């Protein structure tokens, strides 16, 4: 620089470069094959005040965009600017209400935006980092967190950058479940998600092991087809050797007498041992009466918090008998809030099941559909919520019941099994 304003221009250039670097606009990287870097140049301007005197020296680094082709290198150019009319409106409002206007200007505002595309730019003149003349700058804001993390490793000299990025990552990770890939999911499924017994061996074999933890299983059937019985049997079987059960009862159908009957029938200990063991097993089953959907939400939220803070560690199964009697009074009637509540309950249950390795069993009743055929209650919106849907029916011979698959992640719809209820 040879003009006599050189120090001012130098200062303007340094200012601009400083803003660019502090905004982490680019990272230094190797040029990948096949990519063309675009050139850049400096633009200098003397900004004048309204009376003609000098205000300041401005320097701006721009890249030679004319080398880029639309739809190949970029998709749209959009620079959001306010309409003059809007500014007039704001000034008018301020004068009407006697407000003070404070006008601020953000320096290098454009650098705060995100760029979706990858752009390679040659290092600007005068700022070529010695030893890395060949490298080009890559625009910084990436959508891949892993690349972000890796790039911080490459910048050995920037401790603050690494700190900042680690902070950002911790905040993001707290907001949602950690990212997992297929391998992690498979490992989790094999190690953590076991099969809980239903109390009936034929059903267990039919369901390829039993009720899987992490799944929301629904039992559908007409009245007195055996839904509550299966719930009680499953509760007894799981309470015996797996862990705690939470039984949410909306129809006062939890019968401790029946549960004690089931437990004593299926154990082969001596009478004295059975009594002692009975108390222990029955203490594993916790029963709660729920008579409306909002109480159900409160209970589930409380359960979620307890599990998160590790108070109730040993809960393996949650049974809701019946969830349809809680949802039917709020469904319909023109408002969509009934459906919204139903779907929220479904999602809450599925999330509980997956995060804490719990198997959730709910029961649903049947209603008459078109043409006189029976179909499960709760409608179309509920159909896709449970992972597994099983249809129960009592045969003509009172003791033989059958169960068929309505929906299952890896069994065919229509598969049937017949079993005997105790």
């Amino acid at each position, binding site marked *: 620089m040879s003009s006599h304003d050189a120090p001012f221009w130098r200062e303007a250039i340094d200012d601009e470069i400083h803003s660019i670097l502090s905004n982490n606009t680019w990272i230094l990287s190797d040029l990948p094959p096949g990519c063309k870097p675009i050139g850049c140049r400096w633009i200098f301007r003397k900004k004048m005040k309204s009376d003609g005197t000098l205000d300041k020296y401005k320097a701006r680094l721009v890249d030679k965009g004319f080398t880029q082709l639309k739809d190949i290198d970029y998709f749209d150019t959009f620079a959001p600017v306010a309409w003059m009319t809007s500014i007039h409106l704001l000034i008018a409002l301020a004068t009407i209400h006697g407000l003070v206007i404070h006008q601020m200007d953000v320096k290098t505002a454009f650098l705060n935006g995100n760029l979706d595309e990858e752009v390679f730019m040659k290092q600007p003149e005068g700022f070529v980092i010695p030893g890395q003349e060949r490298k080009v700058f890559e625009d910084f804001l990436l959508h891949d967190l892993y690349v972000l993390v890796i790039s911080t490793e490459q910048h050995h000299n920037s401790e603050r950058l690494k700190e900042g990025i680690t902070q950002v990552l911790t905040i993001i990770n707290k907001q949602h479940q950690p990212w997992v890939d297929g391998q992690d999911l498979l490992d989790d499924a094999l190690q953590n998600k076991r099969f809980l017994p239903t109390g009936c061996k034929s059903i267990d074999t039919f369901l390829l092991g039993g009720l899987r933890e992490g799944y929301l299983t629904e039992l559908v059937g007409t009245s007195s087809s055996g839904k509550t019985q299966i719930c009680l049997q499953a509760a007894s079987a799981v309470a015996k050797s797996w862990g705690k059960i939470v039984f949410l009862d909306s129809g006062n159908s939890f019968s401790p007498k029946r549960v004690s009957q089931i437990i004593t029938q299926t154990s082969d200990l001596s009478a004295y041992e059975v009594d002692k063991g009975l108390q222990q097993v*029955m203490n594993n089953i916790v029963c709660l009466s729920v008579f409306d959907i909002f109480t159900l939400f409160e*209970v589930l939220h409380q359960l979620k918090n307890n599990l998160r803070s590790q108070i109730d560690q040993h809960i393996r199964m949650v049974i809701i008998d019946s969830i349809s009697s809680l949802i039917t009074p709020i469904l319909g009637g023109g408002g969509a809030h009934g459906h919204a509540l139903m779907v929220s309950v479904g999602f809450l249950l599925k999330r509980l099941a997956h995060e804490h390795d719990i198997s959730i069993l709910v029961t649903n009743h049947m209603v008459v559909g078109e043409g006189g055929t029976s179909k499960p209650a709760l409608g179309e919106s509920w159909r896709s919520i449970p992972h597994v849907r099983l249809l129960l029916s009592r045969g003509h011979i009172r003791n033989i019941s059958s169960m068929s698959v309505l929906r299952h992640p890896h069994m065919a719809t229509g598969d049937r099994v017949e079993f005997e209820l105790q």
Partner: protein
Amino acid sequence: MELALLSMSAWEMLNEEESLGRITTSCSELDDILGGGISCKEVTEIGGVPGIGKTQLGIQLAVNVQIPMDYGGLQGKAIYIDTEGSFMVERALQIAEACFEDMREYHGFLKRDLQACQVNMQPKDFLENIFYFRVCSYTEQIAVVNYLEKFISEHKDVKVVIIDSVTFHFRQDFDDMALRTRLLGGMALKLMKLAKKFTLAVILLNQVTTKYTDGQYQLALALGDSWSHACTNRVILYWNCNERYAYIDKSPSVRSAAAPYSVTGRGIRSSVSNSKRVKMM
């Protein structure tokens, strides 16, 4: 609202259940298949064709709940919600007198000389302890059910609520079936809550209707599948060769079984063919 405070473990519930009384039906076979009688804390639905004795059973239970504890009863009061107008006071008085005579006979039979164990209830006292509500439309019915919670908290010794019949007002003139389902669902949950909260028995008497399934007409309880989950237990009364039978259709704790019974001048009793002494305890 702590989870730990509201929930009970199954073991605690088992112990509590054994101390809950049951309401006898005055027919020993019927009591047997019910597991000892009508249990408190549960909603029992009783359905049958007209003339089979539903109202008779309802009145009998309203009287039997008042049997003093010394005689094995609950010594409680009854609420009778009448939707059809089938409650007859004279019949209730007749049944109360028969119950009173049975209690005196039992007292004399066992020859107890406990001073406290005296029959100081007169037949008319039985009528005083039945709170009678007459409802004439479905809105009134829902209003009464909503009011029951307040009423029962003021009259803590009510041990049975009988609704005769629960479906009558919902069968006629309902244009909006979805509304009917919602109202019934809400009412059912309220009744369940009442039964659990105040440890009383709720008895719903229901009518039958014909249903066309699989090419043939069958008798089914009114309001069908959407109402079917509103009760904990269901008993169906039917005719079989000129004899009245009761069948347990739905119950979480007892097996399905049938038992004969009869309706006599003294109320519900065991069927004439196996006449036994009326079971008191």
